[in-house]
């Protein structure tokens, strides 16, 4: 009898371990949204892409960690030296202006989404989607209204940012961004909200049945620019 008890106990533990593994595996596969395709090559390619994405995410995390270390080291070195402290403050100010630091403050969140109207209801279906020039115009108006930091779907707008059409997506900072576009801007919310004025660009977009939503917020966080800024050709003129 005890023998049978031990057998059932061991079998139970094995089944326990097995189902834990199966559940974790199912959740992992579901999380990656990779529906199993019948094609072997397709599955392999998808797996490769997912692996590279994971590696990329890990590298980004590493970079963030190193940045923090650098910051800490810099602060440590300049702690007791007033001259260096000034330089450190200059670096910080420059980073802020260039969009290399996370910033937070009041502002507006504008969401531009493609029109929900039927494509057959209009002559030209390209009028129903948000184009790169629409986004560019909105950004321009935001800058005109005094926005200090702007991001589109978490892509920070910096002086070298280009917004160009890339087929059914838009390339911003070389990254592919798709609709809906969530544009966050930090500035005086009342001024920025003037974008919704009659005859403003947002109201023109609304006339084309494109989804426009403007929301004031007192607490917006805009992430820093994640890429590298390389200035190869522009050199500073030394003043005598």
């Amino acid at each position, binding site marked *: 009898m005890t023998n049978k008890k031990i057998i*059932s106990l061991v*079998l139970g533990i094995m089944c326990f371990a097995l189902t834990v*593994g199966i559940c974790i*595996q199912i959740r992992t596969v579901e999380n990656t949204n990779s529906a199993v395709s019948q094609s072997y090559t397709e599955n392999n390619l998808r797996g490769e892409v997912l692996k590279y994405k994971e590696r990329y995410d890990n590298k980004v995390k590493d970079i963030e960690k190193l940045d923090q270390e650098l910051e800490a080291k810099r602060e440590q070195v300049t702690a007791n030296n007033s001259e260096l402290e000034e330089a450190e403050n200059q670096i910080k100010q420059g980073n802020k202006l260039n969009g290399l630091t996370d910033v937070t403050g009041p502002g507006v969140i504008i969401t531009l989404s493609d029109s929900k109207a039927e494509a057959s209801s209009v002559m030209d279906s390209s009028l129903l989607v948000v184009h790169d020039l629409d986004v560019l115009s909105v950004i321009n108006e935001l800058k005109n209204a005094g926005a200090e930091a702007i991001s589109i779907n978490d892509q920070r707008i910096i002086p070298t940012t280009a917004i160009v059409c890339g087929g059914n997506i838009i390339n911003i900072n070389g990254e592919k961004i798709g609709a809906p576009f969530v544009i966050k801007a930090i500035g005086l919310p009342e001024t920025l909200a003037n974008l919704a004025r009659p005859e403003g660009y947002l109201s023109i977009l609304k006339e084309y049945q494109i989804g426009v939503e403007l929301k004031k917020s007192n607490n917006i966080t805009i992430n820093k620019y994640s890429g590298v800024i390389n200035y190869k050709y522009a050199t500073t003129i030394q003043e005598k």
Partner: protein
Amino acid sequence: MVLFAIILGCLLGAIIGINAPMISYTYSSYLAIAIIAALDSVFGGIASVINKKFDMKIFISGFFGNAILAILLTVLGQKLNVDIYLAAIVVFVWRMFMNLGTIRRYYVEKWTDQLVKKKENKEESSQKQKEN
């Protein structure tokens, strides 16, 4: 008793597995092959209980040994650019079907025996009634 333990283990495992953290996609192929190996071991264990040849040492060593060997073979296959895990899957699934066949045969025979006995009992009782 054995069935109860298996069901309890499965239920507990499902509850904990749903709440456990996810693993990264890179390692999910290794976990998948380990699951297949473990599944094969469990079916083998049930089949050996039915055959009354169950040996604890062989069962436990098979459970862990097969899973680890399968993972190692998968890693080796990826290094050599050969899909060794396919061979592992074929072997494990084949053995799973063999063990399932043993389990199925045992229960089918048991149930048919019971049915035959019931019939015989009925015939006996009906004969007794006629005699009476």
